[in-house]
């Protein structure tokens, strides 16, 4: 008698098919082991927004009665395996239904496993992953984040590699034999079966001890009750903005105390303040009013508000003045302009490294260039 639960944390739209493939294949394979299961997406994530963290679940049980027990709790409160298909979400996740910032491992059981696809090592990831009171294992699948669009699927075997790893870290959920048989049946692809096997063979896990990881307290807020909410569905406007840092110059728009966008973004803009021509386009076009106007008339992207859409990069007329860089490269949310003010040479070096790295290690919402898919496959084969 056992019930096992898996959650897949993914980026809305970009990784929807990937997540669905993973949870469905878990249930199909478990059927080969004579188990019964269900697969579902969290409803409050839908309709999905581009890049917003979302969840799908797979629940596998020995009997139908156990399945009913597990379904009595719609959203799992604890899972045996958490699968994170974008390492930037190791910082924690905020669904668009706003529950505050949830640590990536919040639901992971004691002794359970967190699987992450990443090019970072465990120490680097644990700078982001919040600490827990209980131990769990961390398994890293060396991989570039797999993003596609709504109608296309990047069939780079990320799903197969995760399923192979899953069989290794949680054999009680589904056996490797059942998974291989099921993948053969579902896809008819020998190379996919080989990917599952290869990932199984190569799986390495590392135990994360209690207290190990990011020590900061995740952002949270209390939801009001019916006695304290305003009637008539009214939401008060935000107070008007003020000068930068409270001074007379510059302008910082009023921002919500509650609704922040921390890990919502998968990329963030890095600004070259030296080349900025103060044309105002990024400030005007940003859909989230995320740019602060600095006292010297430059534009500083505020990381409480940026959702990482990349409009600023697209509208900026100066080459490489705004560059979208993978969110996984950053550990804080401090002002870039203030860092630049303090140490212009240091900022320039930091920025150059990031921009160059972004050019070689593509993280894009889709494919960065023609032939990018083939290149990435080769790189992953090597990894």
């Amino acid at each position: 008698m056992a019930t096992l639960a898996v959650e897949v944390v993914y980026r809305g739209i970009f990784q929807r098919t990937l997540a669905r493939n993973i949870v469905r294949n878990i249930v199909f394979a478990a059927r080969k082991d004579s188990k019964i299961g269900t697969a579902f997406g969290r409803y409050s994530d839908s309709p999905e927004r581009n890049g917003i963290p979302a969840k799908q679940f797979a629940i596998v049980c020995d009997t139908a009665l156990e399945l009913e027990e597990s379904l009595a709790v719609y959203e799992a409160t604890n899972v045996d395996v958490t699968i994170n298909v974008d390492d930037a979400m190791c910082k924690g996740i905020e669904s668009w239904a706003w529950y505050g910032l949830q640590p990536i491992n919040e639901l992971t059981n004691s002794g359970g496993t967190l699987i992450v696809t990443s090019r970072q090592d465990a120490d680097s990831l644990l700078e982001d992953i919040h600490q827990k009171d209980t131990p769990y294992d961390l398994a890293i699948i060396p991989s570039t984040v797999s993003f596609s669009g709504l109608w296309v699927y990047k069939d780079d075997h990320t799903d197969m590699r995760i399923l192979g790893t899953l069989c290794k870290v949680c054999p009680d959920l589904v056996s490797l034999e059942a998974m291989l048989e099921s993948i053969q049946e579902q896809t008819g692809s020998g190379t996919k079966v080989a990917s599952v096997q290869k990932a199984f063979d190569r799986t390495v896990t590392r135990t994360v001890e209690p207290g190990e990881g990011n020590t900061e307290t995740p952002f949270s807020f209390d939801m009001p009750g019916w006695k304290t909410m305003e009637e008539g569905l009214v939401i008060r406007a935000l107070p008007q903005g003020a000068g930068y840092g409270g001074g007379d110059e510059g302008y910082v728009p009023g921002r919500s105390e509650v609704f922040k966008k921390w890990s919502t973004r998968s990329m963030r803009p890095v600004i070259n303040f030296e080349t900025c021509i103060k044309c105002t386009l990024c400030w005007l076009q940003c859909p989230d009013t995320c740019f602060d106007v600095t006292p010297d008339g430059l534009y500083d992207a505020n990381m409480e508000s940026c959702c990482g859409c990349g409009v600023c990069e697209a509208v900026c007329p100066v080459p490489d003045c705004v560059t979208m860089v993978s969110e996984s490269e950053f550990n804080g949310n401090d002002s870039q302009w203030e860092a630049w003010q303090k140490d212009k040479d240091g900022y320039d070096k930091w920025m150059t490294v990031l921009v160059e790295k972004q050019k070689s290690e593509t993280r894009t919402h889709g494919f960065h260039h023609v032939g990018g898919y083939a290149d990435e496959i080769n790189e992953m084969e090597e990894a």
Partner: protein
Amino acid sequence: MATVKPKPYAESKEELISGSEAIGIACALADVDVITAYPIRPYDTVMQYVSRLKADGNFDFDFIVAESEHSQFEIVKHASAVGARTFTGSSGVGWFYAFEAITVTAGLRMPVVAMVGNRALDDPGAFGVEHNDAMAVRDLGWHLYWVATAQEALDMALIAWKVAEDPRVLLPFALSCDGSFLTHSQAIVQVPSQDQVNRFLPSYQRGTLQLHPDNPITVAPQVNEDWLMEIRKQTDEAMRRTSDVIKEAYDEFREIFGRGDPSPFIEEYMCDDAEIILVGMGTLAMPTRVAVRRMREAGKKIGFLRIKFFRPFPAEEIRAVLGKAKGVAVIDRDYSYGSPSFGGVLFHELRSTLYTLDDRPLMLNFIAGLGGREIKVRDIDQMVETTQTAIDTGKIEQETTWVSVRE
């Protein structure tokens, strides 16, 4: 000559599908002629699925994506008049936008089968399940059925066409499906073979009522007070007749497909010797059954009654079950503002049903899970505790309780 692709459901098999997809497959198996659609969540999940079946060449039907829900329901009504088997549906305020067409569908005795993907009514704009949208057809001559599982969604859709299109009935059929919990959760479903379905479901024959050049008729004239009551009475008689037709169809279904509860109207769970019986509809059956099982293990005599058909309302069956209990706890996933006890629709319907009993149980009402909020096992424990207190003291402190609402 065009080659006909063989039907994809040559043999009965298992599929991992959501409640919406199960209904999509039922449409294919029933060989529905016309499906109309207008996107609104969660109904749109059926649209997406039948589109795929059509695109893959697995289901041939006329798919009309209308410019609004009103047209969507008008089109199937007309298609039904000329003898086409039809399916449509909507959710929440989309269902309400179609309301003029929804009322005339029953008035004209068109056996349209529609899925209501239950969704909270605006405002506030919300996607989660609430039963008020489907409840709105309860007085119009529609069958109204609350589905609990994906398997039941497929099975009842097949039964829906059989019952609705029966010449003794000819009334539309609404399959009410909880948004998210049913429409978006994938479960293992036994999909029957085409052969089984063909044995069960005859083609739709409107007979002499069919609008056709060979059968010149006028449908839907304007009438005055000399005519209207008789027409209403005809619909009433059809609704009275349908209970027997449902029983017949259900028995036949069980025989051919080998599954289903004993009764098409209600599902009893551990009610036989129960002192307190919880009552509810739809997917809340899942946590409720689990709570009941646990309380039984702790020695408490608790049962659960799931109402499947809300129209026709199975008053006799319900009286037989609830009449034996000391306390009845009604869970409403809907609400009727300003109603007699400021409570839910199901509660008032049940209280009216039990009024004729000599020995009536105490009745309490719990408003829960509105807008898709999860109904938890501990919520149900609390409902039972409150009901037990009322039985012990012989006094109801508070008739209606809002469960897990933030103060």
